[in-house]
């Protein structure tokens, strides 16, 4: 239990402390990340020993918060904590001179806490909440330098695309909760039939958004506007992994139709994103497209029915891609830009960094004995053995070729060129990157014990698989090094560099309609406000009318009465003329009246 608390609460506490105190952000964040890593190690050790730690916290009636640290989730928690710790160490050097680093570190730690919560969640409600939190943290971190041109727009677009896809997750989660009657994930995974198919397709939709699969791959390109540590942590190893993690966890439930869709989406993405990476003019965008492509390969594995292969590739890719991003960050630090033209020759000035960069690049391409070799072979084997091998395998192979091609291209650009500028030492950044490079190199040997822990042994592949994998990797590397991309891609260069957008892409089909809808709602809101104000004005005018009535009619009546009484009195005053003769006339009239009344007495008495 203490490991669970440490894993979740250490980053959270450190994040809140940094945001509240705004002092010693680096020390606090490293402490938080370190403690979180410790907690994750504890969880992993426990899961490796066979114990499954669960926790249930009361929340809504019948929907408690469940945390689960089993073999799968503890492994993922360890991956997240390790990459987070290394990236924060790197960021201590990268963001050392930024005046707003307190905000940066605070938000990063909050993200780490939310990601751990997502990975360790045992029920759909917690997973949904954590899903939302990491999306929000991503928005805040991409838009960190919100004063620069294009950055707020990129952050908003990323948030908008992933939010649109999150709808699928919501509907799927509530569908599964409704069908299974409980929100616990492992219980709902026994759903079968049409609900399972629908839920699976919806989960695929959500994963497509978060993991930047076709057709939603554009947001990841634009997300590169954030700081490089953000790209290294969020957009290579953790946030985009959330989609794949979702599918891996839900894999036992997915029926055949959903698996077909998953594999198809993954395969198409692997190829399309690979082409985009090859045509990219910016190092970070190249790496972003590469990320989308690799996750496509992972989806191929899930679609082929072997989620373990996807998991292994996810772990390998996390180490590899984050190391690649950290290296790109160092070169960006040197050349103040990530444009490939500007970075020409940056690798020569930093041999150590470049060596690490090249190592993980070759690892990604699939060279043994590094981690991705084993995981890629597992994917190819799964694709070969699956019922849909006829198109999964070619797509996976093509994706691997392209992997090697764009990695070689990046290496070539970094190596060839002039480097006459002096560079300063970057100890923290080198340390963070170095650990990840080392992990990328040696993780492959840990895969067999991992498979034993997860209880899913992969069959030993036939010799053809490693041979194919090695061959396509070497072919890709050679092609990328030797041939320029525009000749390689030919007619596809144009669409590839524009991100293969169809009919205006997401901008026209999703963003503009969404913003137009928001405008319409705003106008409706204004109309409602005007209506309410009009009602208020009607009431006011009623009040004014009532007051006027009161003043004009009632007061006029009363004062009119008063005036008429005064006028009557004034007229009566005329009787008092003071003249004797008038008085006598009145006296005579009075006497006559009295006599008349008395004489007429017989009539009324």
């Amino acid at each position, binding site marked *: 239990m203490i490991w669970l608390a440490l894993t979740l609460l250490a980053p959270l506490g450190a994040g809140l402390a940094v945001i509240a105190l705004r002092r010693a952000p680096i020390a606090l964040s490293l402490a938080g990340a370190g403690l979180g890593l410790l907690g994750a190690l504890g969880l992993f050790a426990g899961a490796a020993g066979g114990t499954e730690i669960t926790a249930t916290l009361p929340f809504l009636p019948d929907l408690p918060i469940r945390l689960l640290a089993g073999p799968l989730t503890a492994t993922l928690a360890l991956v997240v904590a390790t990459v987070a710790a290394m990236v924060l160490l790197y960021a201590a050097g990268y963001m050392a001179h930024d005046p707003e680093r307190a905000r940066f570190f605070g938000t990063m730690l909050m993200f780490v806490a939310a990601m751990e919560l997502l990975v360790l969640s045992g029920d759909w409600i917690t997973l949904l909440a954590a899903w939302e939190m990491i999306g929000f943290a991503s928005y805040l971190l991409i838009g960190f330098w919100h004063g620069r041109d294009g950055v707020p727009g990129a952050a908003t677009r990323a948030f908008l695309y992933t939010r649109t896809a999150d709808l699928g997750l919501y509907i799927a989660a509530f569908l599964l909760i409704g069908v299974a009657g409980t929100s616990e994930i492992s219980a709902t995974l026994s759903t079968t039939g049409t609900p399972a198919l629908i839920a699976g397709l919806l989960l695929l939709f959500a994963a497509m958004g978060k993991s930047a699969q076709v057709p939603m791959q554009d947001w990841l390109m634009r997300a590169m506007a954030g700081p490089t540590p953000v790209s290294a942590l969020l957009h290579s190893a953790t946030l985009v992994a959330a989609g794949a993690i979702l599918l891996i966890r839900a894999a036992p439930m997915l029926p055949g139709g959903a698996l077909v869709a998953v594999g198809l989406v993954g395969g198409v993405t692997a190829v399309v994103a690979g082409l985009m990476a090859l045509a990219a003019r910016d190092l970070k965008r190249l790496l972003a497209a590469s990320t989308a492509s690799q996750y496509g390969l992972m989806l191929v594995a899930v679609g082929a029915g072997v989620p373990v292969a996807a998991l292994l590739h996810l772990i390998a890719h996390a180490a590899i891609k984050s190391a690649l991003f950290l290296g790109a960050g160092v070169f960006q630090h040197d050349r103040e830009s990530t444009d490939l033209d500007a970075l020409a020759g940056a690798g020569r000035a930093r041999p150590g960094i470049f060596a690490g960069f090249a190592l993980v690049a070759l690892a990604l391409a699939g060279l043994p004995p590094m981690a991705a070799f084993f995981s890629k072979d597992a994917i190819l084997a799964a694709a070969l053995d699956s019922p849909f091998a006829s198109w999964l395998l070619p797509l996976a192979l093509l994706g691997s070729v392209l992997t090697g091609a764009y990695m070689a291209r990046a290496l070539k650009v970094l190596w060839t060129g002039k480097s006459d500028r002096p560079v300063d030492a970057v100890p923290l950044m080198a340390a963070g990157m170095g650990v990840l490079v080392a992990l990328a190199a040696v993780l492959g040997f840990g895969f067999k014990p991992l498979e034993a822990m997860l209880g899913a042994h992969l069959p030993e592949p036939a010799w053809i698989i490693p041979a194919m994998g090695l061959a396509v990797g070497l072919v890709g590397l050679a092609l990328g090094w030797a041939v320029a991309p525009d000749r390689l891609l030919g007619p596809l260069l144009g669409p590839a560099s524009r991100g293969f957008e169809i009919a205006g892409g997401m901008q026209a089909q999703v963003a503009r309609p969404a913003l137009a809808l928001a405008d319409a709602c705003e106008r409706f809101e204004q109309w409602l406000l005007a209506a309410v104000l009009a009602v208020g004005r009607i009431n006011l005018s009623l009040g004014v009318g009532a007051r006027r009535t009161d003043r004009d009619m009632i007061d006029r009546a009363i004062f009119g009465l008063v005036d008429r009484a005064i006028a009557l009195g004034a007229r009566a005053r005329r009787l008092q003329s003071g003249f004797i*003769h008038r008085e006598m*006339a009145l006296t005579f009239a009075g006497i*006559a009246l009295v006599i008349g009344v008395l004489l007429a007495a017989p009539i009324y008495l």
Partner: protein
Amino acid sequence: MSLATSFFLVFFGVAAVWFGIVVFRTHSMVRSAIALLFSQTAIGAMFLVMQAEFLGVLQIMMMATEMSVMAIFMVMFMMDPGGMGKMDMTHQKRLSLWAGGIGLLAALVVILGAGWQGPVPDVPGADAQARMLGRELLGRSMFIFQSAALMILTAMIAATMVAIAPQEREKP
């Protein structure tokens, strides 16, 4: 007898009324006073015709004195005693005419409408009347008589006091 009394009644009545009208139509003040005197004298004559001798004589004597006094006062206080100015010294003439007319008509209506019943009893002689009046005066109506006397005394004092000029206190 009744024919003669009727004739004289009519004659003296008309004279009284006519002289009364002359009082208010003439412009000269002295003539106005004299006309009133004649009117009152005609009324006194009517009393005599109606065999109220004491009252008739009393009326004529009193009115003669009063009217002379009034003539003096009129000459004192009038703006135009001689009546040479020809100014119309009346106000609210129409109202007054109406008032007089209505009074006259109302009285006539009552007179002619009331059913006076005869026969008329016998009138005692003059000395018998005087004797009865004296007895009445000093007998049953003594209180009234004394009150009237008191009233006259008070009025005399009051009139004198009102008419006396305020004394100017001379301070040495």
